[in-house]
């Protein structure tokens, strides 16, 4: 059999043990990609059933348990959906504090991904441990940045991993202005450090890979989005959150437990930092825009490998926004607005570090959950990740199996999927037929 007739199978049995399991399977025959299957076994389905019958006030804390990295995103989407269902609105300083705690989550989540999980790929290191031996300074800086994110979350949330201070209607306790003092210094240091990091990140070697994506993210009339806005895309989508199911559909695919989310009539789409940035560049403060341009970005970015730059820009933005919120903070009279139960359906969609996180709940007049629907970003990006691999692999067919796997791994990690938990998540088996 001639070389090009042989088939190659790239098989990754265990993507990680996270909140479930994942695997990657790629089949190449006669130098053509024949199959790409990203298999994710996804827990929110279990949570959706588990939530039925629970009080609406319990849902933020329960859904926060879905993910150890983005509990705030789950809490925020759940709170907004419940507030939508019972017809209340959280405004003023309470709304600002919600943005602040979300800043903390972006900083810690992006900090982990940029410096510990993604950067080693670009420099040819197996993991952050190997990279740390040669780049001690940047790894240390990454750890310190992440820590500042953790400190914001624990300061407002009560603890770092599964915060306990967030509730439907606001918070259980709110800080006094003076309480921010120790945190302020650290945030200011981190803001300067993120500029330094950006200078280092922009010099990484980026594969040439631009795609014509449909980006989807929230867009707000004034702000770079965290908690509120309309869902928009660069291909004409512009809808209220409550219209989500009119435009998106989840499809069953035989090889994965996660449903593939697609835009009706169009197919895969891209959610996450690249989409947020490309759809909301004009909502970034001027100094953050300048820093992004200095780091080599335009107002939109179609190269998913450059998501590492975009994440660092979002770290810078989150720190800038945190400083603004703290500077203008005045302690609200009440830590929460009243949230009496009533019958209703509520929608919430917020921007988790890795993309839009949609929640929908139906509750009865006592506030008990009748029905729950949670669509996490990794599930939404799953089909797009596969689409990238279908395009990316043919461009690199001449690489050895080992190098090709490495690059596939990097291409998957562009999306910071929850399955990127372990740095060695690809176990590869190659069958040359």
């Amino acid at each position, binding site marked *: 059999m001639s070389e090009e007739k042989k088939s190659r199978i790239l098989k990754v049995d265990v993507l*990680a043990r996270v909140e479930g399991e994942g695997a990657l399977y790629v089949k190449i025959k006669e130098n053509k990609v024949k199959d790409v299957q990203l298999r994710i076994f996804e827990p929110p389905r279990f949570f959706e059933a588990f939530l039925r019958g629970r009080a609406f006030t319990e849902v933020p804390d329960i859904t926060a348990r879905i993910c150890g990295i983005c509990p705030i995103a789950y809490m925020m989407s759940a709170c907004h959906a419940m507030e939508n269902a019972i017809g209340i609105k959280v405004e003023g300083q309470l709304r600002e504090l919600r943005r602040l705690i979300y800043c903390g989550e972006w900083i810690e989540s992006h900090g982990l991904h940029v410096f*510990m999980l993604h950067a080693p790929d670009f420099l040819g290191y197996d993991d952050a441990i190997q990279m740390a*031996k040669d780049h001690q300074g940047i790894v240390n800086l990454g750890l310190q940045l992440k820590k500042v994110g953790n400190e914001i979350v624990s300061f407002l949330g009560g603890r770092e991993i599964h915060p306990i201070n967030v509730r439907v209607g606001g918070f259980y306790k709110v800080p006094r202005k003076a309480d921010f003092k120790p945190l302020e210094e650290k945030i200011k240091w981190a803001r300067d450090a993120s500029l330094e990091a950006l200078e280092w990140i922009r010099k990484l070697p980026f594969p040439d890979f631009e795609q014509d994506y449909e980006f989807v993210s929230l867009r707000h009339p004034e702000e770079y989005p965290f908690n509120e806005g309309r869902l928009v895309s660069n291909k004409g989508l512009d809808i209220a959150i409550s219209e989500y199911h009119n435009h998106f559909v989840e499809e069953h695919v035989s090889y994965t437990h996660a449903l593939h989310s697609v835009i009706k009539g169009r197919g895969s789409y891209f959610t996450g930092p690249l989409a947020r940035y490309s759809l909301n560049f004009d909502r970034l403060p001027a100094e953050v825009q300048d820093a992004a341009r200095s780091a080599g970005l335009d107002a939109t970015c179609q190269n998913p490998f450059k998501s590492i730059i975009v994440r660092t820009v979002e770290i810078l933005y989150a720190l800038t926004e945190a400083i603004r919120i703290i500077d203008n903070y005045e302690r609200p009279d009440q830590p929460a607005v009243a949230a009496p139960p009533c019958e209703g359906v509520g929608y919430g969609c917020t921007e988790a570090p890795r993309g839009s996180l949609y929640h929908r709940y139906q509750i009865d007049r006592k506030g008990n959950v009748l029905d729950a629907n949670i669509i996490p970003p990794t599930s939404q990006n799953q089909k797009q990740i596969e689409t990238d691999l279908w395009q990316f692999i043919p461009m690199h067919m001449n690489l050895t199996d080992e190098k090709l796997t490495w690059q596939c791994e990097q291409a998957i990690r562009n999306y910071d999927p929850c*399955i990127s938990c372990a740095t060695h998540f690809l176990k590869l088996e190659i069958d040359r037929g």
Partner: protein
Amino acid sequence: MTLVIGIGNDFRRDDAAGLITVQRLKGVVGNKVLFLEQSGDGALLIESWKDKERVVLIDAAQSGRKPGTIYRFEADKFPLPGRFLRYSTHQLGVNEAIELARALKQLPQQLIVFGIEGKYFGPGRGLSPEVAQSIPKLIDQVKSEIEK
């Protein structure tokens, strides 16, 4: 002063063994040591043991041996064997934190890791009988370690 860190997830059955051991140790050794309970986020671990002279870390293990088996490692001297400790989230795990800290020269002078082999790691609360039975022995061993 020795810092004793218990690692685990109290909603993942035997994964809570490290946390439970630390909670019970508090009543046994009192205020002679510092205690910390963590989920196993590597970055936070590195931060918490930085500049400490002596650290004892307790975590549930998943290495295929008999449930309840207790292990002791001198992690300041040698890496832990392979994928010995279980990840509880998609963070940097405990193994990675130890090696990253070694590369960054941020390990405590002495880092003793105790592992206890778990049986059930599914969602839920409550230890398996094997792990529950071994915990008093683990507490004795950690107590002797602290008093060395």
